[in-house]
């Protein structure tokens, strides 16, 4: 058979037997003695690539639906979601989504159960959740239990990707023997999109499972976006949006209102982009307002550690040795290690003060 010609569209070109008679038959060898690979034509290549995309879309239709659903609310999301749902229905009808579901079950990647947070809050309001701490274990100076190496402070560090930056620095500040730290961050998450990640529901489960006592939270950078309430879109920054965002922040704060639990909530520093910085000031204002009526929550200003002398954004600030250190990552939002170290100090100071960690550390050292 003749060598394939450009744009030769005769049928059967990509069948194995068609290639055997060409230069790249299965027995053909390279100079080094390796078997030669059979080349393909461009139309075959483009066809294979498009087919691969179609197969991936059908077999992974649920991933596409999730991808579309996690876009910001608006027309683009609606179109993407409609297309992805249509594809998902086709895949479902043909049972093509079964292999993916099987793998998900095999790897344990099943969605977390949702907790009815409203019902839980009602239970808490009725006082169903009791404090079981022995009064003799209460430190009169703090109103919280004494810390010891036998029973270290259970700390939960939770939030979005900012907590990924802060977590290691906070962990380093916390005394190893007196604290047990759980770092729980979700990239791109916040309180605006429970369809992407439902923090109230997740926190409710973590509170039961891990019983944290000092909770440190960072939210905000992903939150200044439109909200959806009962199918209605609330534009970011509008009065209805503020009301709804306040409510969501209040729900998380109330959820954490348990005996012997303290909450340290971070107010965000200035950001490089002035518009984004203004929106972060808005969400931080919500945190301050909501915390004002909830004494178990303290808002800690990260700006006190990260803003410049003029109170604005600072890319770098001199460290303790006077050498300038970059505080942010390339996006002007996330923290570098040096920035996280500075911010962690003000957050940890709050936890340490409320739980008298320094006293406990001194006592532990004295006891050997």
């Amino acid at each position, binding site marked *: 058979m003749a060598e394939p010609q450009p744009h*030769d569209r005769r049928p059967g070109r*990509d069948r194995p037997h068609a*290639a055997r008679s060409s230069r790249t038959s299965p027995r053909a060898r390279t100079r080094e003695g390796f*078997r030669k690979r059979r080349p393909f*034509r461009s139309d075959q290549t483009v066809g294979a*690539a498009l087919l*691969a995309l179609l*197969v991936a879309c059908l077999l992974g239709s649920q991933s596409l639906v999730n991808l579309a659903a996690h876009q910001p609310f608006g027309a683009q999301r609606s179109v993407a979601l409609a297309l992805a749902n249509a594809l998902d229905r086709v895949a479902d009808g043909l049972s093509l989504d079964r292999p993916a579901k099987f793998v998900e079950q095999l790897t344990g990647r099943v969605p977390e159960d949702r907790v009815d947070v409203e019902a839980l809050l009602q239970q808490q309001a009725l006082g169903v959740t009791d404090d079981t701490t022995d009064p003799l274990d209460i430190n009169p100076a703090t109103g919280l239990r004494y810390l010891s190496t036998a029973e270290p402070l259970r700390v939960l560090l939770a939030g979005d990707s900012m907590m990924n930056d802060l977590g290691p620095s906070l962990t380093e500040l916390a005394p190893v023997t007196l604290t047990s730290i759980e770092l729980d961050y979700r990239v791109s998450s916040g309180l605006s999109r429970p369809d992407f990640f439902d923090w109230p529901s997740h926190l409710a489960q973590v509170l039961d499972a891990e019983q944290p006592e000092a909770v440190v939270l960072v939210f905000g950078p992903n939150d200044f976006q439109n909200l959806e309430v009962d199918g209605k879109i609330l534009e970011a920054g509008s009065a209805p949006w503020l009301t709804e965002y306040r409510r969501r922040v209040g729900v998380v704060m109330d959820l954490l209102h348990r005996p012997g639990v303290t909450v340290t909530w971070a107010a965000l520093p200035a950001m490089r982009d002035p518009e984004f910085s203004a929106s972060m000031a808005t969400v931080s204002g919500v945190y301050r307002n909501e915390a004002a009526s909830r004494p178990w929550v303290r808002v800690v200003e990260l700006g006190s550690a990260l803003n410049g002398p003029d109170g604005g954004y600072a890319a770098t600030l001199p460290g303790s040795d006077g050498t*300038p250190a970059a505080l942010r990552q390339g996006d002007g939002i996330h923290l570098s*290690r040096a920035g996280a170290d500075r911010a962690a100090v003000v957050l940890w100071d709050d936890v340490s003060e409320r739980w008298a960690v320094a006293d406990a550390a001194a006592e532990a050292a004295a006891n050997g």
Partner: protein
Amino acid sequence: MLFPTFTFAVFFAVVLTVGWALHRNRAAWKLFMLAASYFFYGFWDWRFIGLIVLSTVVNQGFATVIDRSERDRARSALLVAGVSFNLGLLGFFKYYGFFAESMRATMGRVGLPAPPMLQIVLPIAISFFTFQALSYIIDVKRRELTPAPLIDFALYLCFFPHLVAGPIVRASEFLPQLQVRLDPRRIDLTGAATLIGAGLFKKVVISSYLANAVVDPVFNNPGRHSSLELLAGVYGYAIQIYADFSGYTDIAIGIALLVGIRFPQNFNRPYSAASIQDFWRRWHMTLSNWLRDYLYIPLGGSRGGRNRRDRNLFLTMLLGGLWHGAAWTFVIWGAYQGAGLVVERRLAEKASGVQVARRRRRIAVVPGRRPADPDAAAAEVEYPYGLLDELDAPAPARSRFTERQQRWIGRFITFNFICVGWVFFRADSVGDALHILWRIPFAWGAAPLVTPLLAATIAACLAVQFIPRALTRNVLAGLSQLPAWVHGVAFGAFLVLVDLLGPTGIAPFIYFRF
């Protein structure tokens, strides 16, 4: 636009389809690829396009003027200006913040008002396209290249598969491919699909898993981890950075293959290296070759005796380290590699006496590239690393071990030497790196992070480095006999598997920040 995303998959499907539809009209193909590449780059930040266009126009201007100049002094002066422009651009974006803040602090100390500071965003890919632009104007000055048409050069700089994190493709490797017609009958679909699939698996599954399971926890808080966890963190990072970076270049090479362009190999089973020299012949080979041709040889190469050679080698590695960023960790990493290479070479020379066995192994050939300077060519032969050159190695010394045993001992020592270097590369500070290394022998205790799955993953990734090349190539040759539609279906299913095994949301590639 990251490679392992749905957005990129759709983008590439369009580029592949339209690209091959235009292949008979080379000018239209180039214009389309240029537009697609700018779109790809602008997807991060449209302002970046202005920067790469500026770099393209200025470097093309320098190349043209250098080529037209007859006098060597004028050519050299123009080259100095061109190199200064490129390094200035790179330095401004990469080191501005660091130096500007130093200046502000100094002015503040002497009581002068601090000047306002610009907020500079580091443009993604700037290191890579600057290195490529440098190679272009230097090759023109050396008369190894004549300036290409502007559109060819523009496409060379911004071609989307290699734009963001390499491989660093040389002008002499890329531009000739734009001069010939694309052959629509000889596409290595099997090879490309395998490279892309392997790259995605390495990045999305292996690299992400190791980062989350052990590397990030250990490097973020070494004080909270035991010896075994620290050791697993160090070995895990060695695998993570390999999986991440080689994964990216595998995908880049595969994507380029599908659109009809061949890139040089960038990794060749580096952890099977039996010496440091051998490692650098296998790791980020395009950067090694670049440093050899545009830094080591201009510094004098191996001319001038062993001391000069070792000094040049050390400086090359030191500057290679500094290229990664203005941090002492990178400086120490570069110095450590340079010192390791020098010491290894001296020890080998001492052990084997003055005899040097000329064991020449041609590993790969660069088409159309021939050093014009005979001294440079001689130096190239003496150079201790670089995939594309011939190797001179000291004769093996007599030993009580068999050659096979020596090779395995060499592999063990080399791998651990490289891993120690990675500690500095990954750690946030020199203090952190030393803290990790210091704790490894002393911090005995429980190691809950070291699970059987983690140990198996690290072991499997190391074992893969020793699979014979003949086996993989013959298996691929067998797979290539399958019809194209089977390739499509299998690859689509594999994409879904990778998505399911990987985490939600993909972290950027490690080398994006360089």
